[in-house]
């Protein structure tokens, strides 16, 4: 290492040699902090009232929720075999939502519609049969429906981290369906 100048106010003559620069560049700029530091800081922030208690506090829980959401999507999609049969049932579902019973509360209508949906997909799962193509169509239809529901829930509760997570999982799933479906005619219909 050389020391070409003794002028402390001018580092232009005190530039690093390539070897020195290389050694400094090799210093790690990122390092995993101690595992418990994050929880300590979160606890501190909560104690000071700067953070509220979250619905999911550990990453493992978040992934559990995401996995559960994905499993629900896949399970429901698997049951929606023979998607064309759903047209009649879906019409009934829509009738339940759009019906003239103005006295029913919104919550009751959601519950009624949800029950009708579950009955419809259960009936489809018992209808049996199904080729790979039909299975894919059913999966797509079920995922689209779940996504639409999750999207509406996210709009209704934009600060709910759990709903946002479920929506993100479904969007990822739909993106995959879109990519896979680019090579075949789309079978999903929307009302």
């Amino acid at each position: 290492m050389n020391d070409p100048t003794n002028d402390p106010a001018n580092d232009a003559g005190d530039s690093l040699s390539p070897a020195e620069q290389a050694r400094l560049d090799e210093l790690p700029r990122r390092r995993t902090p101690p595992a418990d530091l994050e929880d300590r800081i979160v606890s501190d922030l909560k104690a000071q009232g700067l953070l509220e208690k979250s619905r999911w506090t550990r990453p493992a829980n978040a992934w559990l929720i995401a996995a559960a959401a994905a499993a629900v999507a896949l399970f429901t999609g698997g049951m929606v075999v023979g998607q064309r049969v759903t047209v009649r049932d879906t019409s009934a579902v829509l009738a339940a939502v759009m019906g003239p019973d103005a006295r029913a509360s919104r919550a009751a209508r959601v519950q009624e519609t949800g029950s009708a949906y579950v009955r419809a997909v259960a009936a489809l799962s018992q209808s049996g049969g199904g080729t790979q193509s039909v299975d894919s169509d059913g999966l797509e239809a079920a995922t689209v429906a779940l996504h639409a529901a999750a999207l509406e829930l996210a709009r209704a509760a934009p600060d709910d981290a759990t709903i946002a997570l479920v929506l993100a999982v479904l969007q990822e799933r739909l993106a995959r369906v879109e990519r896979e479906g680019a090579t075949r005619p789309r079978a999903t219909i929307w009302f």
Partner: protein
Amino acid sequence: MAEVTSLRGVNSIPTPEQSTDRDLVRLVQHGDEAGFRSLYRRHTPALYPFVLRLVGGDEPAAEDVVQDTWVRAVRGLPSFRWDAAFRTWLHGIALNRVREMVRKQGRRDEIGLPDAPTWTPPAPTAVRVDLERAIASLPDGYRTVLILHDVEGFSHPEISSRLGVAVGTSRSQLFHARKALRAMLEPPQGSPETT
């Protein structure tokens, strides 16, 4: 009935990994723990080694500084105007916290004393000294300027602004820091490494 042309929602909500710093900061300002954890995991892997170097490799002290930094950052979010990147702002808080700690411990902060370098580097040993250890053993003021300039890539005017010292002081500190570092890293003449 109409065919679905796009399966993606209009108001897509991004995952934490897709969220920008602004998105996460907004969540944190509403007290959202998940948002904070995402922000923490994004920035702490760079913040922690920065602080660890500034405090001379003292891990408990570095953890305390990182903790204080995040608490101060969250508390100060309402006043953060995004004139700089969030990372830059966060590192600035950490730097100030380290300097406070140094002063509180009664150690000299040579940054403001350009002409009084009383520290002399330890005699070089026959074994090449690890660069991290050499940086850690520098006086606080030398170490701070060297880290900011040679490791983090700040210019002298930027360092001058951040530390509240003259540009010439920053240059001087860097000169002395490099000189001390070289003295520690160079094996003595005649040792096996030089022959």
